[in-house]
């Protein structure tokens, strides 16, 4: 029994893992100790598995406690704790997955792309595990595995299991070092949260290092239309699959809106010779058909390409997709989400599915029946109005959301929320790179909320929006906020000991002061006539707050359960 267990423990990934373990064993040998026999080695190995078991147990315990007590950070606390106890827990557990793992990274589209991939894989009969939305640092990945591990430190129900991890672009190097993915998808590289990540170039450098260290058994899936992403494939010696759009009708030059042509571009320089790229087709930001006029560096031919993209309605995109090996047969997918950015997400997912030899049918069904992830076009009914939540966390994402909303010339009800918490990026300079000009004159109501509502209002003002046309709901003044927070803390402390979490939540709901975002949401809802749609465009933490607020009103499924369908 003991023997069998230790055999099973040796992960199939082999060399690097075994090597690391050997190193660990040696390093833990005190110099005074003499040679060890078989039994000692076995005991040592048992010690390691004991440690894994400890890690899983403690992690899950802490996770359960944290959830029960309603602390924040519950989406990664179990993983973080387990990693503390056994630093290689992720490597050990991931190695047990029968179908391995897939990682999706990039600035925009990680969540939706991994959602599409998961849907396609599920449709093909696999058991899909994912890390929770937004918990895409190492702790979140560890959490996803640890929460599914048994107390003896092994995964449960690992047959036909495959993991789809959405990984933050800044930690992808660490993640691939811990788990060698079968498929690694890079969606795109834009300017995002500069104060947290450094500059776009430093992310590109980190990605290149990731590729350099990547096993050639992994398959890279890259966006051919994004120069910064496509470049990663040039030096990789394993298999690379590109996806891209080949529809000249989508060229920015063909768009009526001139503002869109002057969008920010986050990558413009050829990395080989330093000349600016030129474009024969440009879709948005720096995505398109580019070439370097000096050294001839050119967009790679995509293996999976969209030959025609047509918007049937706001959130119905009809895409014809051709994959390289079946040139003749174009497949049609009806995408249930708005915007060209989601077409790229679907293409990335189709390409990843092809890399895993998943057939067209499950892929198409998976994508077409996809339910929008949290804040990615999610639809909620509130007091007779329809809310659409459209997360926008960087200029490119924002521009695409605005373009999708206002391209039809319809008048929209809009609530924009700008926060500057650390998950949003503390620097709000990026709002000046949004083309809010395209919204001027097309907003039936415009409500601005969040910690930096006033900055956003200035942005609209300098775009020519009249101050009467916008309603600003700034956060409460700082001093007042502090007093309120103190009061709430005092009140909730007394309740910590109570058994029922629900009671506590209910109590909080009644007592929490109506902060800026709640007030902004209410104002926007009431300014939207019954039967019409209110488009909510929040930054990341703004989305979380909106979600929490809707949840409190019993309008959305609980965030914790939002993971598996």
């Amino acid at each position, binding site marked *: 029994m003991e023997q069998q267990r230790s055999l099973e423990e040796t992960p199939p990934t082999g060399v690097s893992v075994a090597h690391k373990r050997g190193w660990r064993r040696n390093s833990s040998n005190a110099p005074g100790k003499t040679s060890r026999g078989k039994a000692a080695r076995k005991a040592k190995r048992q010690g390691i598995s004991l440690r894994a078991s400890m890690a899983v147990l403690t992690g899950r315990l802490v996770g359960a406690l944290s959830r029960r007590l309603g602390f924040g950070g519950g989406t990664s606390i179990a993983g973080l704790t387990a990693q503390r106890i056994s630093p290689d827990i992720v490597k050990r557990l991931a190695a047990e997955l029968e179908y391995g793992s897939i990682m999706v990274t990039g600035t925009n589209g990680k969540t939706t792309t991994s959602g599409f991939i998961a849907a396609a894989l599920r449709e093909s009969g696999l058991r899909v595990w994912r890390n929770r939305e937004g918990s895409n640092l190492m702790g979140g990945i560890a959490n996803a595995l640890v929460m599914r591990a048994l107390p003896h430190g092994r995964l449960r129900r690992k047959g036909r299991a495959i993991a789809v991890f959405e990984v933050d672009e800044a930690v992808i190097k660490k993640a691939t070092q811990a788990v060698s993915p079968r498929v690694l998808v890079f969606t795109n590289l834009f300017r995002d949260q500069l*104060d947290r990540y450094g500059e776009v170039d430093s992310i590109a450098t980190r990605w290149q290092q990731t590729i350099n260290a990547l096993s050639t058994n992994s398959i890279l899936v890259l966006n051919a239309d994004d120069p910064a992403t496509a470049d990663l494939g040039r030096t990789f010696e394993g298999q690379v699959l590109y996806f891209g759009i080949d529809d000249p009708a989508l060229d920015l030059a063909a768009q009526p809106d001139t503002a869109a042509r002057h969008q920010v571009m986050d990558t413009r320089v050829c990395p080989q010779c330093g000349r600016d790229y030129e474009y024969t087709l440009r879709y948005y930001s720096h995505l398109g058909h580019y070439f370097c006029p000096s050294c001839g560096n050119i967009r790679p031919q995509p293996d999976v390409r969209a030959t025609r993209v047509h918007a049937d309605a706001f959130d119905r995109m009809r895409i014809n997709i051709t994959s390289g090996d079946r040139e003749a047969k174009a497949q049609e997918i009806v995408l249930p989400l708005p915007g060209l950015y989601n077409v790229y997400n679907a293409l990335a997912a189709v390409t990843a599915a092809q890399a895993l030899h998943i057939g067209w049918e499950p892929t198409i069904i998976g994508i077409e029946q996809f339910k929008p992830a949290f804040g990615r076009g999610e639809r909620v009914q509130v007091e007779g109005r329809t809310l659409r939540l459209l997360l926008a966390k960087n200029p490119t994402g924002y521009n695409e959301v605005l373009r999708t909303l206002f391209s039809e010339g319809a008048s929209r009800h809009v609530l924009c929320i700008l926060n500057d918490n650390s998950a949003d990026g503390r620097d709000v300079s990026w709002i000046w790179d949004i083309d809010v000009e395209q919204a001027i004159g097309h907003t039936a109501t415009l409500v601005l909320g969040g910690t930096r509502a006033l900055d956003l209002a200035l942005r609209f003002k300098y775009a020519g929006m009249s101050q009467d046309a916008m309603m600003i709901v700034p956060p409460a003044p700082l001093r007042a906020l502090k007093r309120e927070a103190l009061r709430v803390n005092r009140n909730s402390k007394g309740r910590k000991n109570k058994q029922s979490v629900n009671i506590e939540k209910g109590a909080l709901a009644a007592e929490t002061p109506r902060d800026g975002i709640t007030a902004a949401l209410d104002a926007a809802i009431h300014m939207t006539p019954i039967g019409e749609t209110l488009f909510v465009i929040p930054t990341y933490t703004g989305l979380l707050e909106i979600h929490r607020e809707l949840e409190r009103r019993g309008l959305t499924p609980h965030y914790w359960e939002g993971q598996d369908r």
Partner: protein
Amino acid sequence: MKRESAPRLTLKLGHLYPDQLNLYGDRGNILALRRRCQQRGIELRVISLGIGDALAPDEYDLLFIGGGQDREQAPVARDLYEVKGIGLWAAIEDDMPVLAVCGGYQLLSHYYRPAQGPDMRGLGVFDAWTIHKGPRAPRCVGDIAITWNGSTLVGFENHGGRTYLGTAQPLGTVLKGYGNNAEDRSEGAMYRNAYGTYMHGSLLPKNPHFTDYLITLATRRTYGLQAQLSQNEIRANDVEPLAPLDDRLEWEAHAALLERMGLHSAANAALQVT
């Protein structure tokens, strides 16, 4: 529309390296200048000056340089020194107002010494130099407020390099934040009408008094005594010659940031401006 009278004056803004140095919402600064000019009946013409373009010292009324990434900054530094250096020097000596933010500010001082690699030569307009103390030195990131001209400026800073001033005068004294080097509470530098600063966020929209100050410098320099703005005739030494605008929103945003930094009396003062 009614506030925007037909343009009677024109200012030419030279925007240096808009393609390379465009990192920190620099568009906000241009937008603020343009709009505030427009509302005073001044047409602001923005001319992009890229790599290789010559800079004639008498062709512009106002210059702006933004910040960029290190990779993009090196060719810019070369071009600034070799192609535009003499023209820029002449313009600055002739009192042309210049606003240089972040990377642009570093390029106008003597040199930038990166964590690795050779020094980047700057123009030396400001008697100052910048040193990056290696990848382990923390970046200076966060909201910042400084004193300026009896009032305050607010913004956001994000820089790895530390700038030390020689004889150059700082733009202001740091109230909250890091400033030039997180040591001596100085922020930015000035020489004649050239201003260098680490503050973006964007700087000008939330600091309308500074924006107007730059516009005033430019109109006064270009049009001198003859300038007619709104109904008032400008005298050369008039401090506030521009017609006042409704800046309540600007000052509210300004004060909100001050208050978040705990600078309550400064916030109150800012709200009293309007």
